[in-house]
């Protein structure tokens, strides 16, 4: 058991582990909605669009999360408005905003001498540089995200499964759609330091995708996804410590290995995808 305890003598490892637990929990639970609603591209894009906000905060010496949060909220509102007001397809609207803002962030950063190191940290995370202040802010934001997912559980469920029902029940669908975009933005901010911009998508969708093979109801899918997310975070830090590899990629690789294992398990059980669709289902019961 010594190998489990050995890394804990370093404070920065302990902080990294705590951060990985928070990120694993929040990302994998919100990720369930991203997977179910097919918002993976949007999630990836939002992770990239916050870069200019982070860079500005970095250059001004503000906490990075503040810049990321402002930019994330603006992007969420911008994408929402662009798809609502024009007939541009959502993925086109996202693509336009995504690439433009990412380029802006990289351009601003490239004016500095330490360009490549800074860029690497933003792109792939710098988990071992998490301060106590970062940890507190991350936990607070993560708690807010989880609380809102809990409070609006049944409304988000209806909106994800049957948006028309949400409208005929006269639920506040616009508010809920924007709220979900905001939650994604805040979650990305939470995970920024741990996995970075480029690998964000993996931590959002991979645990949830694994969970979708193992579960039949939304609450259990969230729990299984959370367990996989937290495990990937913690195991990734240990892998990073012992194999001397970067922590963000290590976390993502563990999550991917879990996914492959689950996929193999599902294939062995003859269930390569979630249950058959109704159109292929068996004969009508009397």
């Amino acid at each position, binding site marked *: 058991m010594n190998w489990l305890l050995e890394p804990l003598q370093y404070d920065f490892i302990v902080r990294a582990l705590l951060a990985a637990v928070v990120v694993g929990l929040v990302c994998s639970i919100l990720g369930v909605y991203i997977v179910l609603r097919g918002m993976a591209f949007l999630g990836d894009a939002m992770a990239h669009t916050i870069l200019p906000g982070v860079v500005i905060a970095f250059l001004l010496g503000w906490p990075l999360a503040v810049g990321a949060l402002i930019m994330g909220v603006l992007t969420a509102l911008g994408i929402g408005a662009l798809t609502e007001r024009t007939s541009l397809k959502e993925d086109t609207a996202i693509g336009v905003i995504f690439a433009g803002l990412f380029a802006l962030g990289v351009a601003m950063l490239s004016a500095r001498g330490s360009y490549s190191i800074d860029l690497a940290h933003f792109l792939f995370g710098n988990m071992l540089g998490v301060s106590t202040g970062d940890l507190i802010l991350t936990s607070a934001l993560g708690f807010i995200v989880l609380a809102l997912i809990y409070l609006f559980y049944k409304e988000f469920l209806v909106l994800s499964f049957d948006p028309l029902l949400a409208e*005929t029940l006269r639920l506040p669908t616009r508010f809920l759609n924007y709220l979900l975009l905001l939650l994604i933005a805040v979650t990305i901010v939470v995970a920024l330091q741990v996995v970075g911009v480029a690998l964000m998508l993996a931590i959002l969708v991979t645990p949830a995708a694994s969970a979708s093979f193992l579960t039949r109801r939304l609450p259990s899918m969230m729990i299984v996804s959370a367990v996989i997310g937290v495990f990937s975070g913690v195991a990734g830090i240990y892998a990073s410590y012992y194999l001397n590899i970067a922590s963000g990629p290590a976390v993502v690789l563990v999550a991917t290995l879990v996914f492959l294992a689950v996929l193999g398990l599902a294939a062995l059980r003859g269930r390569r995808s979630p249950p058959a669709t109704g159109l292929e289902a068996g004969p009508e019961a009397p």
Partner: protein
Amino acid sequence: MKRTIHMPHEPGTPALEMQDVWVNYASRLSPGNGGARHALEAVTFRVERGERVAVVGPNGAGKSTLFKVIAGTLRPDRGRVTIFGHGPAGHFCIAYVPQRNQVDWNFPVTVEDVVMMGRVRQIGLLRRPGKSDWATVHAALERVDAAALTHRQIGELSGGQQQRVFLARALAQEAELVLMDEPLNGLDIPTQEAIIGILDDLRRDGVTVLLATHDLDLAAERFDRIMLLNRRVVAFDKPGAALQSGNLLHAYGGHLHRVEDGDGLLITDTCCDGE
């Protein structure tokens, strides 16, 4: 049970009334697409409470658009829609049973979860389903003869079972106006009959049903009135009068194959996928 504030239903008013309703396709900003094309033109009709109406027309006739306007999820560009005497906005007594290909059958929910979704509005924001909500859900499943399916994952259901579950959801919603978008496509005759049997049961409670279908025989035999729709209301009458061949030709044009045999008219539509 907790009563929620609901748009009042004026006594003596029809379940549904439309006056000169127009819907354009190109009503949103769209690059390279000038000129409005109408999905619905000058649609005017009324449906009394408890009536069962079949909405019939070729693909692209605007059946789904009509239902969305009634449900209040699509605002018409012109005209007035009244549900039990008021505009659609405040009502949550309208149930929309979606076409089968509009539902993600792999979604991780069980049958009772889907039926409970019908109660989300009555339960209210920030609240959890209570005992009475579960009782309503289970009673609804009982009533459509689907109690045995309660804990099934929805991907495991057959076509007929799917329709029962969505009808149970409409019951749990305490819907008084039910819109069904081609629910009978691809179902065998006994299953169709079973679904119609549930609609008979709903009618005894005064529930009004509009059902889009391609099956003219079924529309003629089991519905009070038939609306022939092809962007305009071509006919809206008792089955015998609505399905006169002049009306049918007008509604279907060249898409209709008419085979006249000894004792009647056999009519087949060229296709039957969703609009």
